[in-house]
């Protein structure tokens, strides 16, 4: 079984700051991490490898610095790593991104494609299903458990909804997006990090893939960012300092005035 795990390197959003004048991100000093859902997807792949034997390939698209995320995945135990990097890819929206990644998956060949459910910098959850559609393969999103029944050769997935779950079975190539709650990614030590240093990271560019420029990059993206803004609040109220009794009384009065109690 060959498993391709699609991962994304993201800024650690908890530490993001915005330049209030230019409305742009201040990236300086913000650490980059493997997107949490994606890291769990790597863990799922490694567990399938341990249980059933598999070749685990990690794939990411991004600038050359994204190599760091791939190195981390290799240290966790992935067998191969590929970086999709080309100026022609820059500015891609989710649809264009998925077009590029799907072309790479096709080139590399896989029996199972894993993604994280969504990335913390965009929160869209779109790229996984879009890759699946481009490849013409089924998708299972929001996976809360993934197992492989070797005897029947089916993938068994617990698919989570807000109010229920489904147990789904898929035979043949499919794409699964996993929730970070599915499992805790394994810890890697210094030796893992040193050991992976030997491995080479494959670079995939536009020239390596069967792609039409009309469908990728900024110009090939159906959606465009028209403008960005920081949030403005227009309420102006007085803040009052009260003792607990006075505060409780003020709240009760306010609720009564609105006929809520």
């Amino acid at each position, binding site marked *: 079984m060959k498993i391709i795990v699609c991962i994304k390197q993201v800024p650690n*959003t908890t530490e*993001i700051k*915005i330049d209030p004048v230019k*409305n742009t*991100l201040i990236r300086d000093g913000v650490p980059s991490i493997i997107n949490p859902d994606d890291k769990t997807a790597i863990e799922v792949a490694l567990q399938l490898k341990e249980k059933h034997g598999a070749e685990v390939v990690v794939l990411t698209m991004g600038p050359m610095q994204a190599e760091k995320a791939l190195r981390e995945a290799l240290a966790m135990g992935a067998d191969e790593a590929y970086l999709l990097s080309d100026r022609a890819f820059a500015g891609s929206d*989710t*649809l264009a991104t*998925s077009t590029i990644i799907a072309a790479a998956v096709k080139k590399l060949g896989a029996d199972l494609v894993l993604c994280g459910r969504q990335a913390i910098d*965009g929160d*869209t*959850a*779109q*790229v*996984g*299903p*879009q890759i699946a*559609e481009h490849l013409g393969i*089924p*998708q299972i*999103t*929001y996976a809360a458990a993934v197992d492989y029944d070797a005897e029947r050769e089916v993938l068994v997935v617990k698919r*989570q*909804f*807000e*109010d*229920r*779950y*489904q*147990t*789904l*079975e898929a035979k*043949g190539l*499919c794409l699964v997006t996993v929730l970070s709650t599915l499992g805790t990614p394994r810890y890697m030590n210094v030796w893992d990090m040193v050991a992976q240093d030997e491995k080479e990271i494959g670079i995939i560019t536009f020239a390596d893939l069967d792609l039409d420029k009309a469908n990728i990059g900024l110009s090939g*993206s*159906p*959606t*465009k*960012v*028209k403008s*960005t*803004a*920081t949030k403005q*609040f227009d*309420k102006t*109220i007085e*803040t*009052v*300092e009260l*003792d607990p009794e006075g*505060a*409780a*009384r*003020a*709240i*009760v009065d*306010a*609720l009564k005035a*609105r006929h*809520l*109690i």
Partner: protein
Amino acid sequence: MAKNVWVFCEQRDGELQSVAIELLGVARELADKVNEKVVALLLGDGVSAKANDLVAYGADEVRVVDHANLKHFVTEYYAQAVTQLVKANDPNVVLFGATSIGRDLAPRLSARLHTGLTADCTKLEMDEAGNLFMTRPAFGGNLFATIICPEHRPQMSTVRPGVMKKPEFDGARKGDIIQETINWDDSKAVVKVVEEVKETKNVEKIEDAKILVSCGRGVKDVAPAFDVAKKVKGTVSSSRSLVDSGIIEHARQVGQTGKTVRPQAYLAFGISGAIQHLAGMEESEYIVAVNTDVNAPIFKVANLGIVADANAVLKQLDKIL
């Protein structure tokens, strides 16, 4: 030319989901701007009877696909149905709820139809030419981006439950109900549903509460908050910090990674008002904030701001109610 605003009206076990109704409200505004129709898509098995409700909430037309293939949510069957209807009718806009169903189906469709999709929009506006302006939070809610899809149709977006206001039910409204038939391709639907299990959680739904007693890290003991909530017939909600520390369950979390709420009164105790929290509650009718820090950002959205110890105030409320 692409025309009309479509809403994918999600149902579960035959029950219309509140987000579907909310979307009909915003769809009505968008369609009125260009004098076009609101078209509701109702897909499921044994769901036709619900079509009248969609008209009452603002649809001019309901397109119903009532078929056993749609009993459970199966991406491929739902995608086939919507794709065929879209291709036959060329809508200008298609809206989906940003639920675990909408966020599965909509991206699949965007790739199949080769058009753009914008996730989790908090504001939708339209110009006279029918271009949709889709505003969504970006980078952990620190920024808002307005996205357009100028050259592809339909323009598609998902909207989270609770973000848009529910329109009034008008039983006298008239609309057309159209039963549709789909040419199913069973060979593509290879994922099998072995079982579907409903998880009945005993958590009160914070999105349905009239009054929310919301606790943040400044609340040291949440027990009085539960007592107060009971007395005012409200519900306890919280910021993420109490969820992260395991004190409150995730289903009660308000904010960008929790729920969007718009109760008649939102009482924020010991909540700083981080942008990701505000994103989930700023549309509340009336906001009370109790915080010891006079500079807490929560005061920027509050109608009544009180500088006081939240724990003492909660205890006192419990006493006098």
